[in-house]
């Protein structure tokens, strides 16, 4: 008898689960695509630099240190939001920041850096975006944290906020720097 009474409560139970799921869903962003490259080796590249085409920036040059790779472009408005933060971070000198200039024009990119400041040790010039595809870039800005072994450890989609910087990126960077 109780089991047959119970089956009338089943719809209510299922519904309660559904509401719980939807409530959690309200806090999530359905558009955000997580990166499958976390924990995997960063895709290699060797690109000319934004500053001067004769100079090249390769991933191999950056091995052995913890660094940030920030994907940016002069046509990207959200990049301007995070740019002051990057400048300040560069000034603090905690971690080197390298840039990946995505689908841009060299002169416009250089002008942009001159106007807004250049936090990057160097910026690679990815004109056709193919390296971006290798890194799973689907929008700008994006920032990757790469460790000493060359593995990607974190990806930030969208501009870096002070909160994300202090709570997620910097602690991770320190942790990685202390590791062997």
């Amino acid at each position, binding site marked *: 008898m109780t089991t047959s009474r119970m089956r009338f409560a089943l719809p209510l139970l299922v519904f309660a689960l559904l509401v719980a799921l939807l409530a959690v869903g309200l806090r999530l962003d359905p558009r955000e*695509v997580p*990166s*499958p490259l976390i924990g995997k080796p960063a895709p290699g590249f060797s690109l000319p630099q934004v500053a001067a085409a004769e100079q090249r920036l390769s991933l191999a040059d950056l091995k052995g240190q913890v660094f940030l790779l920030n994907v940016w472009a002069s*046509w990207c*408005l959200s990049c301007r939001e995070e740019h002051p933060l990057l400048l300040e971070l560069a000034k603090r000198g905690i971690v080197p920041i390298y840039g990946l200039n995505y689908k841009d024009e060299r002169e416009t990119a250089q002008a942009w850096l001159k106007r807004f400041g250049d936090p990057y040790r160097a910026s690679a010039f990815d004109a056709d975006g193919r390296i971006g595809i*290798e890194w799973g870039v689907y*929008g700008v800005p994006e920032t990757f944290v790469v460790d000493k072994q060359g593995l990607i450890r974190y990806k930030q*989609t969208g501009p870096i906020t002070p909160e994300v910087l202090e709570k997620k990126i910097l602690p991770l960077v320190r942790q990685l720097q202390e590791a062997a």
Partner: protein
Amino acid sequence: MNHPIDRNRSWPVARGRFGVPTRSGGMGLILCGLLLSRAVVATEIRQFDDPVKQERYERLLKDLRCLVCQNQSLADSDADLARDLRNEVYGIIQSGKSTEEAAQFLVDRYGDFVLYRPPFKGITVLLWSGPFLLLGGGFVFLWRQAKRRADRGSADSALSDEERTRLRQIQDRFQR
């Protein structure tokens, strides 16, 4: 019918033709909404040396999801990234590789999100088996109901045989 405004992102806009720079990150999404109306038909007219490859290419593109205009397939999206990814897929198919390899190329870089057909793995078992389980449950329910109604029916001795026949005749007459 505005798009959910995501102010944090920008996407490259085909410059020159539209001449409309992204005013704010959010406009990129509104652009997707308007691009949906086939502002530019996603037709890079591709040359294949083999019609089989062409069919593979076209069929695969329909099953891949655009990451920028996330409600369109890679076949239909006009986003810049979609064009770039179509280039990649074209290259892979043209070089003779299979659709699975082309799809895997994208999955390696962007994850399962890019597939419209969810892969059959541990976490999607419930998804693929769910409908069958539901149906099975429904059949169990149907069976139990049917048995209950039939059983009690045979034990129903409130009417005599003659009454039951008469009742049946009356019911048949008014049956629709």
